[in-house]
């Protein structure tokens, strides 16, 4: 059964100020949503609220169409934030195999092997190196490999392609397309075009201005 992500009347505060309010959308399996807007307009906040890392001021999000019982929608999400969530001291392989076994797979799919994931990001053969030895772009790509080693139907991506070169951009677009094709859902905050068909949510910023779905 295809899943869908339903968000209703979401609003969130940072300190005393409302960053956004009344954001509602429905994403069905295979849909992507690109969140755009100026710096500070609340893109990251929206993603963190969706990831369950920030409490929403009001509104709700839920997953529909899941066969298995789940506790909270965040358990079905990958969150790729600004930070890579990889340890510099450990090798790439140790990092990825830790996340693979720690996160496990959501019902409905399976993660791919570590070497395969590194290959898919165009970095095969260097997974024996400590993560700290890699360049910023390579580190970012290896962080993306996390998306592949553990299966999650929903990907929440916060400026995924910052620090990436043009070829890695295209590579990443292929991965996103493949994920969408397999019935996944992607929500990405980005300044650059993601390279896939997507709805756009333009965040207009501070103090009670609602985002509009274009």
């Amino acid at each position: 059964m295809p899943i869908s992500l339903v968000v209703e009347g979401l609003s969130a505060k940072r300190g005393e100020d409302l960053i956004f309010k009344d954001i509602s959308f429905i994403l069905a399996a295979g849909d992507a949503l690109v969140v755009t807007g100026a710096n500070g307009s609340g893109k990251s906040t929206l993603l963190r609220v969706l990831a369950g890392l920030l409490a929403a001021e009001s509104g709700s999000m839920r997953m529909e169409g899941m066969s298995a019982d789940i506790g909270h929608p965040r358990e079905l999400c990958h969150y790729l934030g600004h930070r890579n969530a990889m340890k510099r001291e450990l090798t790439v392989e140790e990092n990825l195999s830790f996340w693979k076994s720690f996160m496990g797979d959501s019902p409905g799919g399976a993660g791919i092997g570590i070497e395969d994931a590194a290959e898919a990001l165009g970095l095969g053969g260097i997974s024996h190196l400590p993560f700290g030895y890699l360049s910023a772009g390579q580190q970012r790509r290896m962080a993306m490999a996390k998306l592949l080693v553990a299966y999650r139907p929903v990907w929440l991506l916060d400026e995924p392609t910052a620090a990436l070169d043009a070829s890695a951009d295209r590579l990443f677009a292929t991965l996103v397309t493949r994920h969408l094709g397999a019935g996944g859902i992607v929500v990405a905050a980005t300044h650059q075009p993601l390279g896939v068909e997507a709805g756009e949510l333009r965040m207009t910023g501070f103090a009670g201005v609602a985002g509009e779905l274009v």
Partner: protein
Amino acid sequence: MTSLFLRDLKLAMRAGGGALIGVLFFMTVVAVVPFAVGPDLNLLSRIGPAILWIGALLASLLGLDRLFQAEREDGSLDLMLMQETPLVLTVLMKCLAHWTATGLPLVIAAPLLGLFMNMNEVAIGATMLTLLAGTPAITLIGAAGAAVAVTLPRGGLLVSILVLPLTIPVLIFGVSAAYAAVEDPAPFLPPFLILIAITLFFAVIGPLSAALALRAASD
């Protein structure tokens, strides 16, 4: 879960992990005491268990603040908060790994330092046993303190100050059990069992409050 345990152990052993800093500190503290107290062997053996316990307590407070802060800085904490695995279990597993990397070496180093303090074999054995039973409680209490201070950039001292009062019962019962083993009239078992009870109690309370604090601290 075992993968988290192994990863944290590996991190502690690698460069900059700081697993052995605690032992070094422990050795430094205990090694300077005979110089300060003087060569009175009877006095040294009398205060030995207490000095060992104080050294172990201070050494296990060292590095506690990094328990969650390092995870938060590189974004790993975000992912841990999102998983299906209950956060309490994640915290408990991190505490176990932290204790194995920093607490267990203290227990193993204790006999050597006991010799510095002219302690006899019974006193050394009893101190080792009480350290083995008691130091996990310090880590578990410390986890709650570390979670509260996770967003503070210089939380190290604050964690120690938050945690120290709560560890006083551990110190009291640990030292009194160690003394009871050498001094005849006092029974060893009651304080030792209370020490174990404290550890078990904090094995529940510590991770629970740490998990609550981590959820509340997310920003």
